[in-house]
C-alpha cells in the first residue's frame, strides 16, 4: 500500500507524571449554574483523579463573595442565587485544599457580552478519500455564526465558542404492548478543536460565517426529528485568548512541519506559597448562547433512517424499540424544544 504523507498510530513510550493539579472553570454574567473542576493528573491517556474537600470562594472587587459547593467528588457548583456576574466588575477565586494548600486566580474583569446576529446551517455533499483511496461522496452539515464586533475600544476582547448537539430519537412499537417513546440526548462533542476568533479591531468589525461545527450526517437516525446545535459564545480577554491558543496548539498537533514546539500549558491560577502556576484556567467571560436546528425536511437527499425503514417483521435493533438503550448522555426534554 502506498504511504506518502500517511499518519498511523504507533506505540510510543512516554513518561507518566501524576499529581499535577488541574483547576478549570468559568464564571459569566448569565444567571445559570457555574462549575469548577479540581483534579490531579495520573499519567498520559488515563483519567484524572478528582480532588475532593476543597473550599472555593469567588469574590468581586466590590466586596461580594460566595462559596462553591462540592456536588460530586472534584466538581464544585456556584448557583445564580449565590452570586451573579456583573459586567465591568472583576472576579477572582481562592481555593483551599483539604491539606491546606491555597490556590488563587488573578482578578479578571467581566467584559460586556457580544450578541451574535445569526446562527445558521448549510447541508451539502463533499468528496472525501475512502479507505481504498477512492473518493466517496458524503453529506455534511456546517453550522455558521455571524457576530458583530464592538467599535474599536481600549479593551479589545476576543471570542471563543463551544458547541453541543441535542437530538431526539423516537423508537417504534416492537410489540403489542410497546408504545413509541421519545428520548433526548446531548452530545457535548468530544473533540479537541478550540474555536477562537482573535479580534483585531483595526482589521474587521464583523465575524461573518465563522464555522463553529461541521459534522457528517451519520448516523441519520439522529436527524429523524429536530437536531439542535447549541452554541455558547464567550467573550475572552487577551490573556485567555493566548491560553486557548496554546491549548489548541498542544491538543491539535498534526505532526507536520508547521507544528510549534509543544510545552506544558499553565493558566491563571497560582499556588499562593510559591507562585507556581497550575494546569487549567478560571475564565471570567461574558457568555451568550444561541441555537439552530435541522429537521428531516431540511436534509437533502432524503435520509435513510435505520429504525424507521425496518419492516415490522425484521429483527429490530434494541435502540429502535427502546431508545433509552442507545449509548449516549440522555437528558430530559429541553424547554426550548417547545419554544422554537
Amino acid at each position, binding site marked *: *500500500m*502506498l*504511504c*506518502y*504523507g*500517511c*499518519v*498511523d*498510530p*504507533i*506505540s*510510543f513510550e*512516554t*513518561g*507518566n*507524571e501524576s499529581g*499535577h493539579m488541574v483547576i*478549570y472553570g468559568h464564571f459569566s454574567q448569565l444567571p445559570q449554574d457555574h462549575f469548577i473542576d479540581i*483534579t490531579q*493528573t*495520573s*499519567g*498520559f*491517556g*488515563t483519567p*484524572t483523579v478528582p480532588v475532593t474537600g476543597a473550599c472555593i470562594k469567588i469574590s468581586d472587587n466590590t466586596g461580594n463573595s460566595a462559596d462553591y459547593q462540592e456536588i460530586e467528588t472534584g466538581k464544585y457548583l456556584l448557583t445564580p442565587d449565590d452570586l451573579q456576574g456583573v459586567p465591568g466588575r472583576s472576579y477572582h477565586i481562592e481555593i483551599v485544599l483539604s491539606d491546606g494548600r491555597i490556590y488563587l486566580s488573578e482578578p479578571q474583569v467581566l467584559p460586556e457580552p457580544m450578541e451574535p446576529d445569526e446562527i445558521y446551517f448549510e447541508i451539502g455533499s463533499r468528496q*472525501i*478519500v475512502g479507505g481504498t*483511496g477512492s473518493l466517496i461522496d458524503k453529506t455534511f452539515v456546517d453550522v455558521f455564526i455571524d457576530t458583530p464586533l464592538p467599535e474599536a475600544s481600549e479593551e479589545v476582547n476576543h471570542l471563543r465558542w*463551544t458547541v453541543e448537539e441535542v437530538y431526539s430519537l423516537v423508537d417504534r412499537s416492537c410489540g403489542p404492548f410497546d408504545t413509541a417513546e421519545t428520548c433526548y440526548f446531548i452530545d457535548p462533542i*468530544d*473533540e*479537541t478543536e478550540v474555536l477562537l476568533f482573535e479580534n*483585531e479591531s*483595526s*482589521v474587521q468589525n464583523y*465575524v461573518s*460565517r465563522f464555522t463553529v461545527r461541521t459534522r457528517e450526517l451519520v448516523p441519520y437516525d439522529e436527524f429523524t426529528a429536530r437536531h439542535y446545535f447549541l452554541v455558547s459564545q464567550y467573550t475572552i480577554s487577551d490573556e485567555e485568548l493566548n491560553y486557548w*491558543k*496554546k*491549548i489548541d496548539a*498542544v*491538543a*491539535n*498537533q*498534526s*505532526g*507536520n*512541519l*508547521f*507544528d*510549534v*514546539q*509543544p*510545552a*506544558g*500549558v499553565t493558566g491563571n491560577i497560582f499556588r499562593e506559597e510559591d507562585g507556581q502556576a497550575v*494546569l*487549567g*484556567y478560571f475564565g471570567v467571560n461574558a457568555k451568550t448562547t444561541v441555537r439552530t436546528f435541522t429537521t428531516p425536511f431540511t436534509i437533502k437527499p432524503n435520509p435513510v433512517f435505520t429504525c424507521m425503514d425496518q419492516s415490522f417483521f425484521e429483527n429490530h435493533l434494541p435502540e429502535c424499540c427502546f431508545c433509552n438503550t442507545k449509548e449516549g448522555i440522555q437528558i430530559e426534554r429541553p424547554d426550548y424544544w417547545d419554544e422554537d
Partner: protein
Amino acid sequence: MSNLKYTILPALLWVGLNTTSLHAQDLKISGQFNDVGLREVFRDLERRYDIRVFYRDQWLPEASINHQFTQLPLDQAFQTILENTGLSFVLYGKDNVIVAEKSRIESSGGSHYIFGRQPTDLQGIDTRFPILAVGDSTTSSVPTAQQITLYFKDEDEESTLDGVIVYFEKYERTINSDIYGQVTTLLPAGVYQMEARRVGYQPFICNLRVYSPGEIEIKMSQEAIELMEVVVSGEGPEQRLLNPQTGIVSLTPKQIKEMPSFLGEADVIKTIQTLPGVTTIGEGAPGYFVRGGNIDQNLILQDGVIFPNASHALGFFSMFNPDLISQVQLFKGNIPAQYGGRLSSVLDVRLKGNNYTSTEINGGVGTVMSKLSVETPLIKDKVSLLAGGRVSYADWILPVIKIPEVQESDAFFYDFNVKLSSKLSDKGSIAIGYFQSFDRVSFEEEAGFEWSNKNISFDWTQEIGQTIQSQLEASKGDMDNLNFDPSGLSVSELKNGLEIYKVKENINVQRGNHQLILGGEWINYRPKDETLRSAGSQNFDEQVSKGSGRELGVYLNDSWEVNENLALSAGLRVSIFWSESSEDLVSQDEQYTNLEPRVSFRYGISQSSAVKISYNRISQYLHLLSNTTGVLPVDQWITSNSGIKPSISNNFSIGYFRNFRQDTWESSVELFFRRMTDIIEFKDFADLILNPQVENEILQGDGRAHGVEFFLKRHSGKVRGNLSYTFSRTFVKVPLESEKFSSEWFPAKFDRPHNFNLVMDWTINRRSRFGLVFNFTSGRPITAPVSSYNLGNIVVPHYGNRNEFRIPNYHRLDLSYTYKRNAVKRKRYQDSITFSLYNVYGRRNAFSVFFRKENNQPAKAYRLSVLGSVFPSVTYTFTFK
C-alpha cells in the same frame, strides 16, 4: 578532440619521449579525406579509433587536404596526413598523437631524442612521460629559481580544479592547487618529474622542463570511462592527508549526479547529507544540520551570493542545478578566515562559466522536473555564456498521496541561471550572473507558501604579476516570502523577505611555501517589512518594519608548508557589526566587534598518515526565527541588535588520517567539540509573527556539541564508495518557563547521536553501474506528553521537558541503476537513463510523532511518514558537446 589537452603559456612545447607505444605501433588506420580540413580529419580519426590527437587550432593551416590510405600504421598515416602542412607529430602513451609545428618538435629535446640525440639535461629522466616546457626556450637557462605558475583545469568542463596535489619528485615537495586551480612555485631551470593527482581524474605525470619564469595550463582528464567515477564525495586521498584543514569536502558535479536520489534528481544538499556530521530533520524539511549547529548556522553560497533559503519544494530539492555546477566545497571543521558569519559550516557552490572554446548542452527529463542548460562561447576565447533552467511538474504526483489535503494541494517551482563571462586578458576575467527561482506550495484551501529569489552577482578576477590574484565579488540577494490563506474568515497574505548586499575583495598571494589570503567583506542585511494584508484590502492591515545590519569582515590567513611533515594555516578575521533598529522595533542600535582566530595544522606521521588539529572562533549576526518542527519558507531572518546578541562558536577538532594500499583506501577519525554562546532558542509558544517585540520571544543561551566521525573510503576498483559513522551530541541551555527557568542542559532538536552512512558504487561494465545508499540515524528529540487532563470536553496533553523523548530511528536504503548508451567518452552526444528506488524496503520513517485524541478514543501517539513507501523514478539525461 579539437583542443590541446595541455596548453603551455606563454611558450608551449610538446615532446613525446616514449614515441611509439606498442598500442600505437600496432594500430593500423584507414581514411578517405577529400577537401577537408585537418581539424575534421583529426575528429574523424578520434571517432573511429581509440586515439586522441592534440594540437592547437592556430597551428592548423586553413588549406584542405586530400588523402586516401588503407590499413596504414598510425605513424605512417600521420606522416601522410601532415605532408606539406609544416606540421609534424609525435606519438606518446598508448593512444596519443601530438601534432605541432615542425620547428617546435624538431627543436624540442624529445624530438632530438626521437632521432637519437638527447639533450644532456634530459638524460636520466623517466622517458615514459612527456615533457612540458615552461618559459622561453630561446633564453639561456639560469640556475636561479624561476617562478612558474600552473593552472589546472578539467579538460571537458573547463572548470578550474582545486585540490590537485602536485608533487615534484626531485624536491620531494607537494603543493595543493587553490580554489582557482592555481599552483605557484619557484624552481631553478632544469627538468623535474611532476605528478599531479586529483580524485576522479587520471593522474598526470610529466617531466617539467623549466627554462624561465612562465605559466602553464594543464587540463586533466577525468577517468577514461566516465562510468567509473567515484560515487561519493570527498577530497582526493592525498589531499585529505596533506591539507592542514580539517573537515573539508569537495564535490565534483559527476559525484553529485551519480548519487541515488529521490525522484532521480541529483542534488547537492542531498549529497552532502550522506557525509559524516551532516544530518537533517527528515524528508520534506528544508536545510541541514552540521556538527551540532542549527539550520541557520550554515552559510550557503552560489558564486559568492548568500542563499538564506536554498530549498525547493520544502526541502525535497535544492536550488543548485547540478548541470551548471563547477565545484562544491563544504567546510564543516575549520572554516577559513575568508568565510564568516555562520557558526557551523560553509557550502560554497561555484558555477561553470569559463568555457570559451566549445559548446555543451545538457538536459534531462525526470519524474517530476525537466531541465536544460547550455554553455557556449559567444565570442570565441573572449566571451562565454552559461544558462540553464529547471521546471517542475509535480502536480500529477500529489494525488497518489492518500491525504485529502495533499491531494488537493499544489507544488511548483522553477529556477534559472544566466552567467556571462568575459576574458579581459590572459590574466583577468569578469563574470556577471543572475539567478531567479520561484516556489509555490499550497495545502488544500487552508494555506500555502510562495518564496522566490532574485540574485545578481559580479566577479572580477585579475592576476597581478606572477604571484598575486585578486578577486572582487559584488552581489545582491533578494528573497521574498509569502504565506497566504486563501479561504475562511482570515483570508490574508503575510509577507516578509530579506535583501543582502555584499562586496568582497579577496587577494591570494603565493610566496614560496606560503599561501597568503587577505581581504575584506562588507555585507548589508536588510530584512524586509513584515506585512499582513487581508483579502480585498489595498493597504496593509499590519506592518512591522525590521531592523537592518551591516557586517564588515577583514581577514588575513597564511597557509605555510613548513616542511614535508608540517603544514600550518593560521588566520584572523575581525568582524564588526552595526545594527540599525526600526521605528517598530523596541531594540536599539548596537555595535559589536569580534576577533575570530582560525588555526589549523597538520603533522605527517608517515607518508600515509597524518594528524590534524584545528580551532576557530566565529560570530553570527543574522538569525532565523523558527519555532516549528521544520523551517518554514515564511520564517523570518532578523539581525542582531541591542536585544539579540551575536551568537559565537568556538570550534575545535582533531583528526587522524591514514591512507592504505597506495591511497586506494582512505580513512580518518575526527573528533570535534564546539562551545557556543548566545545561540537562539525560543520561549514556549513564541509569537514570532508581526511582533514588534520579537526579541521578547527569544531566549539566548549556551550550546555545546561534541562528536567523533569515522570515515572509510575506497577510491578505486570496480566497487567503490564510502562508509561513515558519527557519534555526536548537542545540548542547549536556556531558561525555559515550562521547566521553571531551571537552565538545565537539554538536547537540541537536531541532536541525533548515531549516524551511519554507506554509499557504494559498483561499475558493472563500461555502460552500466549500480549505486546503493544506506542511512541510519537516531531519531530526533521531541517533546512528548507525560500526562493528560480535561478542560471541559477537550482532552489536553501535558507536555514534559523539552526534547526529552525521541522519535523512532530513521533508516533507509536507496538503489539506482544507470545505463549509458555510449561508453566512449569522446562521442559528442551522450545520454543515459537512471532507474532509482528510494526507500527500497518502504520503511515508514517517522517525520514526527505527535499525540492526539480522535473522537471518543483515548489520546495516543501517531506517526507522520512523509515517504513511507518505496518511491521509484526514471530519469533520462543527455549531454551534447
